């Protein structure tokens, strides 16, 4: 019986230890994105995200260890008759590029997500499971670095290089599930 008491005591001490892997969790943070569009003729939209604007991020930033799950969500409308493969890029420092060429010349650009194909003249709501698969390894690393850093970056949505496209995205959201030590 004494051995059982020691085991329980040891486990209890482990549970109570701050920074122990036991005292951790996965916290989901949703960032609403404004409606935006991408057009190979008239230019691309951007949205600058400041993670610090979300209280959940602020409260857990110091305890953040990793990104557990990610998703770009929303309703994608292809305004062209041709299919489009939508990609999301980010610049790790806030930027205001208005066309694909200047974005590609940015040294801090990283392809974050995609391609997500939308057939011509259709609207498609992305599935969370599909979206989770579309993050690039470099994009995940850049996002983790931003989440651990100043939390300030810019997102762009665009179609394939040197092709004609015209799409818009509504009800958009960037979902981050962060691993935090409690």
């Amino acid at each position, binding site marked *: 019986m004494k*051995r*059982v008491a020691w*085991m*329980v005591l040891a*486990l209890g001490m482990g549970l109570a230890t701050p*920074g122990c*892997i*036991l005292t*951790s*969790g*996965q*916290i*989901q*943070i*949703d960032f*609403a*994105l404004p409606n935006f569009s991408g057009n190979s003729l008239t230019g691309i939209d951007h949205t600058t995200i400041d993670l610090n604007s979300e*209280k*959940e991020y602020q*409260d*857990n930033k110091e305890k953040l*260890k*990793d990104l*557990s*799950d990610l*998703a770009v*969500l*929303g*309703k994608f409308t292809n305004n062209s008759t041709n299919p489009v493969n939508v990609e999301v890029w980010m610049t790790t420092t806030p930027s205001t590029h208005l066309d694909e060429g200047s974005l590609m010349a940015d040294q801090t650009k990283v392809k974050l997500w995609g391609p997500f194909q939308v057939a011509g003249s259709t609207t498609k*709501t992305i*599935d*969370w*499971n*599909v*979206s*989770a*698969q579309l*993050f690039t390894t470099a994009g995940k690393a850049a996002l983790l670095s931003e989440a651990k850093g100043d939390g300030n970056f810019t997102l762009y949505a665009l179609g394939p290089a040197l092709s004609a496209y015209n799409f818009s995205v509504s*009800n*958009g*959201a960037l*979902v981050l*599930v962060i*691993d*935090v*030590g*409690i």
Partner: protein
Amino acid sequence: MKRLLLLALFVLPLATGAAQAGPAGISVGVFGGLSVPVLQDVSTSSFSPSDAFGATGSTWGLRAPIHAISSITFEPYYAKSKYKDREETIGGITYKRDGFDGKSYGVNFILGHPEGGLFHMFPYIGIGKTKLERTGQEINKTGYNFGLGVGLFSSQKMAVGVRGEFSMVATGDTSRKFVGATAGITYRLTP
């Protein structure tokens, strides 16, 4: 890690068995029950204590208690689990995220004997390898567990018991955690 587990699974029971004068008591059993994610994918802005527990999943598997020395029973196990999908409305649209499918194997170290009679209690700790998979995410890491079992019935060949367990999969500095309750039945191959 794999080597360590294999060592624990096979060498330890044999070694301890060899140190004993008598043969090891070996049983095989099946179990099934519930498993609930703890503090996973929660939203802290609208957090209430009940949100700490995710949707109840199921777990089932095989165990083979090997009672080679008087105070410890070694119990290799293999388990599978299935967690429910989660639905959430974000930006006015309802999305579904897959729940994890889990597989794990390892060994439990049980203090005493798990095949006692009514209300016979036995605490245990375990270590193993756990794989959690869902679309776009895979976690394949070392898992740890501890719990308490209670015997309900025992005869010469059969034993029935229930267990409450806390388990976690270490993911670097953090972990994915679960609590569970299972019921199992074992059949003694050797006394």
